[in-house]
């Protein structure tokens, strides 16, 4: 063992032999140990996107509102009134799999610093989480740790955690997903970049001292999890949210002082990546001395300082005459603000240790020289089986079973209220949260304007597993509809592509197809991708996760007073479906119903009708602007019936019941329609709205204008959810009390039962 690592230390560090040869060739010599370590972290999949870059280039990234696209620390979107929103989602899956509390906590820390690096004040967080089955003790341990890690770190920062998702499924058992979205606000002129511009400018490290924690964290993040992963707990960084809070305030003050030329988070690969990336963006070089980096333990060598992933640190490029100002602000907040080097014109990253040269590597080679791989892609075998789901394979439930099925769906941890989770998060601090977690997308006011910002994260991995292109397109469509049902206009997305090992042709095919589907949906819905993150090698013991390309979407409400929410408002209001509910067997593909009631994960999900989705978005935003809708809700997990139940759950006092008949949706007209398909099918491009009866004509007009079918299915009434067939037979009646009880207690019961 010692022998191998002596002969080929690059393998231990995660580099392939061919990559080592490439380094030697480009460098024209053997790299020394420190240099090799620097290459290993920056050329890791996590930092270099070796397997995903060619695919990512196919995504649409431009639009009239995009101020900064992919390539910087975060995307930035113009939201009007001279304001801009920086937002990005990032994964912290591997650390959370072995050390859930710190893994999740430092995941927040990292993405918050990315937003800060753009010059924005971080103002909201959302968490998109995936776990194994809730009755698995390991899941309970991971779930508890992740949720309290998010609470422990996020609450202390004073950034509200306003939304996200939690989804449980067996493929995530060994490899949970922890994706964190952060957004920040700034004026246009406050935009900063991560570039080491200006030869002679000073390189400074601000924030926490540097220790030996997290060395090779991103190499660990670029490997599959195995039996020895527990031993990699030492690779997981430890977070200090108090330090991060001070760092935010100090950096904002330093940027406001005009001292900061460039700024970059020291996250994955620490000092190595921040130095290489800032210099690469500016086309300059850096000469730094690691002996000048404030250290929390003695005797650290250059290798350790360069590779440390100690948290709560930022790299600043400061004009020479402003160094004292930066130091003064650092001292005010009790932080280190140390000069460690200068910007040079050498094009090299030169690392000294107390004056002795320890490493010298061309910046372009380090930051941009990693090879790109286009591995073999092969359609997965399992699809032959799952795709082949016929009408007769799904036993049609008796009418008498429907109530029990609905209550089981509402109690399913994937659908039930997530209050046991979000009540642990401070979602109100900063006093901008108008709609917090629990109802759908989060709605935030922007002080000093009439505007609202709307955020959501979405992705149903089960659908992506069954049809990656369609599933990824659904993730975008669902996110867009989630935003639009508040009345907001979807503007842009950030994505986090969570997949297994790209070296497996079947997984690479999933990735390729998902990126294709996502790109198509983003093009039609005009929501460009402004940045994000790729997390590969999410597997344990040959069990890959469901392919999970999470979409984080930003939307804008021009007038926050005109927002809509899912809850019914008044008895007598008409309930209608915008769009199309298929109602056939295929629409049950990958549904929660199919898994819960029939124990099947199967089918071939249809692609969303993107033009129709566009029309629905237009109808919702226009209708909200004109104040015609009392409520609006998208149709996702659990289908139409669960969507209606949620409208009841969130309904106003006296408006928590409804009676509907799917007659208007075409039942009785088409042969392939099934009752369960109609009620529980998920792949529908549709939304449920309610409005006062006297506005029906106006709603109908708006729908016609945008070519969106409008089907009136019932009205708000009574104190139960009642469904009739097209023949008028009442096939289901569930009291609101029963709905509430199932919905509110479902998650806790499944985690504690």
């Amino acid at each position, binding site marked *: 063992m010692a022998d191998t690592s002596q002969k080929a230390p690059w393998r231990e560090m995660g580099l392939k032999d061919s990559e080592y040869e490439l380094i030697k060739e480009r460098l024209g010599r053997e790299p020394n140990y420190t240099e090799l370590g620097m290459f290993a972290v920056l050329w890791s999949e996590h930092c270099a996107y070796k397997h995903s870059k060619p695919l990512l280039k196919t995504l649409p990234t431009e639009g009239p509102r995009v101020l900064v696209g992919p390539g910087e620390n975060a995307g930035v979107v113009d939201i009007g009134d001279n304001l801009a929103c920086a937002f990005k989602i990032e994964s912290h899956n591997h650390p959370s799999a072995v050390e859930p509390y710190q893994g999740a906590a430092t995941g927040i820390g990292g993405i918050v610093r990315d937003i800060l690096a753009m010059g924005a004040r971080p103002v909201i967080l959302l968490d998109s989480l995936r776990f194994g089955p809730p009755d698995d003790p390991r899941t309970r341990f991971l779930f508890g740790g992740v949720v*309290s890690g998010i*609470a422990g770190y996020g*609450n*202390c*920062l*004073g950034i509200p955690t306003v939304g996200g998702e939690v989804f449980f499924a067996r493929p995530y058992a060994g490899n949970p997903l922890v994706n964190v979205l952060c957004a920040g606000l700034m004026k246009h002129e406050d935009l900063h970049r991560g570039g080491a511009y200006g030869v002679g400018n000073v390189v400074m490290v601000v924030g926490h001292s540097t220790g030996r924690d997290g060395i090779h964290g991103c190499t660990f993040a670029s490997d599959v999890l195995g039996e020895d992963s527990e031993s990699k707990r030492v690779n997981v960084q430890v977070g*200090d*949210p*108090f*330090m991060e*809070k*001070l760092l935010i305030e100090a950096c904002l003050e330093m940027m406001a002082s005009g001292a900061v030329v460039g700024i970059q988070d020291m996250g994955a690969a620490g000092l190595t990546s921040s130095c290489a990336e800032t210099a690469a963006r500016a086309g300059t070089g850096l000469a730094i001395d690691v002996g000048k980096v404030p250290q929390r333990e003695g005797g650290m060598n250059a290798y350790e300082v360069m590779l440390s992933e100690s948290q709560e640190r930022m790299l600043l490029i400061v004009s020479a005459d402003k160094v004292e100002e930066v130091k003064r602000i650092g001292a005010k*907040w*009790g932080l280190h603000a140390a000069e460690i080097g200068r910007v040079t014109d050498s094009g090299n990253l030169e690392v000294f240790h107390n004056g002795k040269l320890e490493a010298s590597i061309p910046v372009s080679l380090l930051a941009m020289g990693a090879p790109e791989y286009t591995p073999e892609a092969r359609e997965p075998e399992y699809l032959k089986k799952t795709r082949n789901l016929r009408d007769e394979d799904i036993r049609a439930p008796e009418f008498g079973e429907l109530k029990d099925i609905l209550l089981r769906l509402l109690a399913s941890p994937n659908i039930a209220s997530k209050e046991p989770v*979000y*009540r*642990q*998060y*401070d*979602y*109100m*601090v*900063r*006093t901008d*949260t*108008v709609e917090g977690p629990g109802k759908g997308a989060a709605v935030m*006011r922007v*002080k000093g304007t009439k505007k609202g910002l709307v955020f959501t994260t979405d992705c149903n991995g089960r659908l992506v597993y069954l049809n990656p292109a369609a599933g990824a397109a659904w993730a975008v469509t669902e996110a867009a509809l989630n935003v639009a049902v508040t009345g907001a206009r979807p503007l842009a997305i950030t994505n986090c592509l969570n997949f297994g090992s790209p070296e497996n042709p079947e997984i690479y095919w999933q990735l390729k197809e998902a990126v294709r589907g996502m790109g198509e949906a983003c093009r039609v819905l005009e929501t460009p991708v402004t940045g994000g993150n790729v997390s590969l090698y999410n597997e344990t013991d040959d069990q890959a996760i469901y392919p999970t390309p999470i979409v984080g979407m930003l939307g804008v409400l021009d007038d*926050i*007073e005109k927002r809509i929410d899912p809850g019914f408002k008044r008895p007598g209001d008409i309930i209608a479906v915008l769009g199309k509910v298929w109602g056939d067997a295929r629409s049950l593909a990958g549904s929660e119903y199919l898994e819960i009631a029939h124990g099947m994960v199967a089918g071939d999900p249809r692609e969303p009708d993107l033009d129709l989705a566009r029309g629905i978005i237009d109808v919702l935003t226009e209708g909200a602007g004109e104040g015609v809708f009392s409520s609006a809700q998208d149709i996702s997990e659990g289908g139409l019936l669960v969507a209606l139940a949620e409208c009841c759950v969130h309904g106003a006092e006296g408006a928590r019941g409804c009676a509907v008949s799917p007659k208007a949706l075409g039942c009785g007209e088409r042969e392939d329609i099934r009752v369960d398909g109609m009620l529980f099918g998920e792949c529908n491009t549709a939304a449920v709205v309610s409005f006062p009866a006297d506005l029906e004509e106006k709603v109908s007009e708006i729908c016609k204008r945008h070519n969106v079918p409008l089907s009136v299915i019932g009205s708000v009434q009574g104190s139960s959810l009642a469904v009739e067939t097209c023949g008028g037979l009442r096939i289901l009646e569930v009291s609101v009390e029963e709905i509430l009880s199932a919905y509110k207690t479902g998650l806790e019961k499944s985690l504690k039962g």
Partner: protein
Amino acid sequence: MKFGVVVFPGSNCDSDAYHVLRDVIGADCEYVWHESRDLSGFDALVLPGGFSYGDYLRCGALARFSPVMDSVYKFVDEGKLVIGICNGFQILLEAGLLPGAMLPNDVLEFRCQWVNLKVENTSTPFTNLYKPGEVIRVPIAHGEGNYYAEPEVLDELERAGRIVFRYVDAYGNPTREANPNGAARNIAGIINEKGNVLGLMPHPERCSESLLGGEDGRRVFLSMIKSLETGAFLSK
């Protein structure tokens, strides 16, 4: 009349209190850095919520040693008004300006939610615009709000009308279910003997605008202004 909002390292509701005082109510308001010792010119101070010094060691335990606290003691002696919200309440307890201590929530988890509060004493500078016994809705967000004091101290607080807010159900009953953190006798907020220092765990600054779901908290600040203007309920 002027409010000061003290900023400790780690305060994170400072800008929320400042926003309500200045932008919603229109009061004169300034931030006070924790190293400042000069409180002249201020009539009332807010010790805001957050995680001062990361709440390391114990909530509020380090903030009480901030330089500004020396001046806060004098400020209180002079009969000026101090309101400590959430972490600010914890700091007031650690500083000995209010009796008792905070324990972790009995549920052993952070809790962010709306609660019902009964205004138990409306003859204070902080509550004179509420109706006696009024039930209001206010958010909480804390991990350590389980108020504790010796039984004799609690009895004295009850007797002297120093329990200002209690967690109650929608009908005003201080039930076990209505108590989100296990606080002794459902206590959510208390005042000092002199009546010029209020500590409370709930966040009135988070419910001072209808857009945020309620405005029951605004009258806490308006009551302070009314007292300062008229001298009502102020100690001499």
